[in-house]
């Protein structure tokens, strides 16, 4: 029998802890496949955040660390500085990266730290049960914005990729979506590019992946993707914001 799809070896056999239909699993797979493609499994390490993907340290089949909430880019910095021959990435949610971890991500990017960051944006705090995130859309109801996100009071959602693209140092910044098979193929290219640049030692690479949270949005997995296409993509536009390798500045 011809094997056309298998679990990448850079993922352990530990079953994912995600809800049915959650796209964190897809994102893990893309990262794992890219690492494998570039033959980096023996020189790769990653930092898991605090969020639903907190157990990422169990899922990736190489040495992994788990960081305090929001601090993954700082932890990754320490690792990269201590072991320059290792390739380091962080995997973070929107609460982790864009709320409590804003300082760490901005400064890691600003230093052009030689790490890759995979940023899964699902517009909510999944792990803690559906509170408002910095990326929560205007008027969107969450458990801490029960009357809808009031932008006059709490501001508009943060476009992290655009924010980081104001800095000089980052080498590669792209936003992709996980909302359809075609989008996932494009996402795969972006993730691979980040890992490739990481392998080549080019500098700070950042991929934002637009995702869903069926459980806390209270929408079934398929409809969640439609909802995200309709509501998230107009605000969080997919596209490459920086690619020094291709002359996109």
């Amino acid at each position, binding site marked *: 029998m011809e094997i056309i799809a298998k679990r990448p070896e850079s993922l352990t056999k530990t079953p994912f802890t995600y809800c049915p239909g959650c796209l964190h699993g897809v994102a893990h797979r893309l990262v794992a496949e890219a690492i494998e493609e570039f033959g980096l499994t023996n020189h790769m390490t990653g930092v898991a955040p*605090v969020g639903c993907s*907190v157990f990422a340290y169990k899922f990736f089949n190489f040495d992994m660390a*788990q960081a*305090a*909430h*929001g601090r993954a880019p700082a932890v990754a910095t320490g690792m990269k500085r201590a072991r320059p021959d290792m390739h380091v990435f962080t995997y973070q949610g929107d*609460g982790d990266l864009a*709320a*409590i971890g*804003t300082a760490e991500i901005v400064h890691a990017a600003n230093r052009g730290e030689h790490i890759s960051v995979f940023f899964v944006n699902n517009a909510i*705090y999944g*792990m*803690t*049960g559906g*509170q*408002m995130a*910095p990326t929560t859309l205007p008027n969107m109801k969450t*458990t*801490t*914005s*029960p*009357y809808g996100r009031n932008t006059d*009071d*709490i501001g508009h959602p943060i476009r992290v990729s655009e924010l980081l693209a104001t800095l000089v140092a980052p080498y590669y910044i792209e936003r992709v979506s996980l909302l359809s098979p075609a989008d996932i193929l494009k996402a795969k290219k972006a993730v691979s590019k980040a890992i490739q640049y990481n392998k080549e030692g080019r500098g700070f690479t950042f991929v934002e992946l637009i995702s869903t949270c069926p459980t806390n949005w209270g929408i079934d997995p398929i409809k969640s993707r439609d909802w995200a296409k309709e509501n998230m993509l107009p605000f969080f536009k997919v596209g490459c914001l920086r690619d020094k390798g291709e002359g996109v500045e």
Partner: protein
Amino acid sequence: MSKILMKGNEAVAEAAIRSGCRLYFAYPITPQSELIEYMAKMMPKVGGCFLQAESEVSAINMVYGAAGSGKRVMTSSSSPGISLKMEGISYLAGAELPCVVVNVQRGGPGLGDIQPAQGDYFQATKGGGHGDYRTIVLAPNSVQEFADMASEAFDLADKYRTPVMILADGMLGQMMEPVEFKTPKTPEEMEELDKQHNSWCICPNEDGDKKHHHEINSLEIDPYVLEKHVNDLYAKYAVIEDKETRYETYNVSDDNEILCVAWGTSSRIVKSAINELKAEGKSIGLIRPITVWPYPTEAVKKAIGKKVKKVYVFELNTGQMLDDVKIAVEGKVPVDFWGKVGGIVFTPAEIKAKLEACFK
């Protein structure tokens, strides 16, 4: 008012609002999130401010700003988030600002787990942040007491211009029990509250008043000035130790062969075991510190009856209160300890077995 069945997290939030708290800043974390969610729902209804901060660090500094502006303000979190607030609490204590901080403890260290624990006793009672300071720490053991402590904490904070912590845990936060609430503060009372800090807080100059210059600050660059400031703080803490120490005794008598010491959730479980052994004719007392700082040292000392063979400490940690008990016991009788960690709550049967063993 009739009783309402409510989670501890929600009850303490409701009680805080009724106590005149109109400013609340926090960041989500399990097992405390129902508290922040309740505030998100209710604060807009009473014209108060609910703000989800970008982190616990900013939340406690928002508290610093609001407390410095003389208003009743609260924040809450669970263990990992409380660690992040510790810097801010040190500043609040240094600047002598009143506020209420709720810690719904979970298992640690680090990310630990999300189950009930009492592992933040040292952090809460011995300082936690840097420098010489103390915070009043109230430790509830029921949903009713958790709620009642909200108003008590605000009153103490205002009276002594100091941060007050309510040290609960995941069990008290998550469980529902019947609660009866005090009537909410009236608009007039709220106005009084508003004025009480005007002699020192950030506030507008009233027309015709002498222009004031109030500083909200914990910096004293001159060592002799700082020395005096710290000594003044400790004079204040001495008054608090003298006047505000609270505890409960249960079944304490001269017949006691064992005296138990337990606080918060642990004390309920120990009570269960004591009741069962009482039915079997064994006399065991319990002293429960309600303020874990100031610590009821004298009360523990007094509770040791003539026949007591052993003082037994039970906690959901590795024995963080043990030293405080030993100081009170002064080596007069042996002090033993048993605890559970990892977010596991011991059962009455386990405590009973430990106590029974003392009679063999």
